[in-house]
């Protein structure tokens, strides 16, 4: 027999009730959340220039690495990803394993910063931070650990100043931009970046970048929020989710000139690997990188595909170079359980061995 249509009404009503219950479940879980904290590892502000700050982490463990480590995160999103939750913090793990860590906080670019170029970030801020650490610790060179776009900037810095870098570790870093694997790489080739920057009044908003990231997995939010009410009664899971959401939402704007140059010279013209990139009037040659290199990429990275990271090892002049594949995605490198168990010790030991 055919079911009468009014039974459909019953089934719709049941669905409405189920959804009401889901909403109430979410509501009651969220009622008890009073604060969502990230980046809680204690640290001290040791240097500042405008919005850019340099922090030094407190380390209660014995320092096993003689050369301090400067951490350089991307200009996109915030460095808090490295210390998102206390029990899965890359920073805490590296401190525990005996590294002496500094980190750059790029701050939030605004209209005042619209004319800042890649040169300002590399030859200005990164160089200032490196020199501060060299002077404070009375060392010739520092160790560099750099992430994503921060990895690209640090690689360029290392090529320009190999005498100031003892060892370089790059994580999920784009170097060869001539790849068809990542959508961002494809889309950026059709972007009129001058119009975009000018249209936004010289500062590209973080929301614009986040929109692009969302488009990479267009139904990611639907999947995520559909599944959420079933897991959020577990307070720990809810808090982990909220920390990640906080990090995603905390997306700084980009200084227009730097953004233009990064897109044009790298994404569109791939100048770095071609040896055509110029910073402050100087040609950047990856062959100048002669210090030890640890290049870590994520096998399932949809933001920076492996094909954009792996080639770095072929272009540098270093004799001591290691390629490390992390089985996971772009973010999994920093927050997954495997990151704590395997990646943290690998990075720490690699630096300790090369800092004797």
């Amino acid at each position, binding site marked *: 027999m055919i*079911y009468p249509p009014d039974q459909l009404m019953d089934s719709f*009503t049941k*669905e409405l009730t189920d959804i009401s*219950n889901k909403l109430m479940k979410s509501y009651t879980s969220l009622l008890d959340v009073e604060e969502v904290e990230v980046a809680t590892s204690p640290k001290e502000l040791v240097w500042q220039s405008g919005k850019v700050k340099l922090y030094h982490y407190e380390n209660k463990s014995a320092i096993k690495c003689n050369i301090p480590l400067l951490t350089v995160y991307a200009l996109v999103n915030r460095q808090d990803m490295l210390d998102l939750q206390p029990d899965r913090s890359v920073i805490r793990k590296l401190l525990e394993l005996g590294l002496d860590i500094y980190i750059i906080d790029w701050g939030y670019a605004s209209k005042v910063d619209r004319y800042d170029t890649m040169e300002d970030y590399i030859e200005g801020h990164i160089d200032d931070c490196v020199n501060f650490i060299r002077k404070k610790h009375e060392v010739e060179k520092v160790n560099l650990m750099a992430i994503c776009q921060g990895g690209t900037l640090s690689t360029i810095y290392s090529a320009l100043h190999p005498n100031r870098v003892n060892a370089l570790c790059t994580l999920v870093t784009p170097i060869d931009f001539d790849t068809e694997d990542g959508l961002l790489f494809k889309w950026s080739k059709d972007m009129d970046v001058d119009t975009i920057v000018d249209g936004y*009044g010289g500062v590209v908003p973080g929301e614009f970048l986040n929109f692009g990231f969302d488009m990479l997995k267009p139904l990611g939010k*639907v999947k995520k929020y559909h599944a959420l009410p079933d897991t959020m009664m577990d307070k720990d899971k809810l808090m982990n989710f909220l920390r990640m959401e906080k990090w995603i939402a905390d997306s700084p704007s980009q200084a227009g000139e730097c953004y233009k140059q990064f897109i044009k010279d790298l994404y569109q013209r791939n100048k770095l690997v071609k040896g055509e990139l110029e910073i402050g009037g100087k040609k950047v040659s990856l062959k100048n990188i002669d210090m030890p290199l640890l290049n870590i990429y994520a096998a399932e990275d949809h933001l920076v595909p492996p094909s954009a990271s792996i080639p770095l090892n072929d272009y540098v002049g270093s004799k001591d170079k290691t390629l490390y594949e992390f089985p996971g995605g772009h973010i999994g490198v920093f927050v997954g359980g495997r990151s704590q168990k395997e990646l943290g010790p690998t990075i720490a030991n690699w630096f300790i061995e090369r800092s004797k």
Partner: protein
Amino acid sequence: MENANTFFNSWLENQNKVMQNWFETSKKFQETVAQAGNAEKSSDLYKEWIENQKHVFNQFVATSAIANGNGKFQANNADLLKQWQDMQSDFMKQWGEYAEKYTGRSLPSSPEDFLKETRKVYDKWNEVYTNWYSTFGKSFEEFRKNIPVNLGKDVFTNIFDTNKTYLKMQEFYAPVYQLMKDGKLDHETIRKAVDPARYREVVETMFEFLSPDKAREMYTQMNKYIQMFYEMGRKTTDQYKAQLEQMQTNIPSFFKIEPNSVAEMSLEFSRQFEKYYSPFHKMMPPSKEKEMLEEALALQEKYAQYWSKSSQMQQFILKNAELALTEALDAVVKEATAGKEVEFAKFFPKWVGILEEKMIKSFSTDEFSKTQGDMLSLGLDIKKSISSQMEFALSPYPVVPKSEFDELLETVHELKRKVRALEKQLGETSAEAEDKTAKKVVSKVKA
């Protein structure tokens, strides 16, 4: 968490009672229908349902008040429950009215009749559902206010919106599932069961960022500017304004039908506008006003192009949504033919997965990349034009225009670079001097 859990447990218990009441009443309604219809009796049933409902809610309010020690929590939630009760009462009332109208009709005997009747239920459902959602939206705002952290408020909004999509898709899938349960599901029937308009609604809910409303919002912004611009000095623009307003009203519906026709319409409008102003325009001596007028005309054309690109983007989404639906439903038919039932809870993630896969594939084409790039450029170029015209409009007032402020920022940046270079030079010179002094001291000591 204890408060929340107690509240939630009470809530669940209450909802179960509400549902029980619903189904019992529903069953009685159907029995009334079977007994050749009696409108008065169904009104009695409705009253009975309301009484039961009130009892259940009052009991719940009393229970949760006792269970929770926090006075604020009690008061807020009692208010919310009152709203909730009102909402469910309205919902039931509407349903009851519909059931009365439905009284006495025979049950459909074929899939075609079933689908025909289903459409009617859909229409009613949509009305009831819209009402439910709007009422729920009001209580939702109240719920949202109680969440202490802003991030939590946003998460709650996202869950609410996702469920809206889920519910819309469930509405779409329900007749397919009913036919499946009855063993009548095949490729032919399923095509008839699919309502493209409803499906489009689901997809547009999911991708609100590309909906015509957004384009309309942008157009409104531009329209306001144009009006302000012309009101500042010219009274001859009434006709133009009227046309703009008319166009603004028409655009979204045209947009839905044929994107290129919108672009053509807008271009034609620009041409007409230009023609209208042509004699006046020619008489104008070269001036900032003339430049701005030309820019306003160019803006019209850019808008037409923007709409065209924006609608192409929308077509990418809709085309993939159509392909994904076909594939997902084909899979359902296959399973149904093998004697398996695919419940909505399983269908939804499957459909979402297929849709995402198709979209990513489509997003990786040159065509999409180019269209997206063009749309972005046009959108931001329009924004830039509006800014520059705003600046012109504000030029008689004592306000520092953005372009001059930018010049200042550029100068500041240049100075900062020079200071940094000098500081570095100074640092290096000092280091060299220190080095030389140290060497001299060492040689003196040696001597």
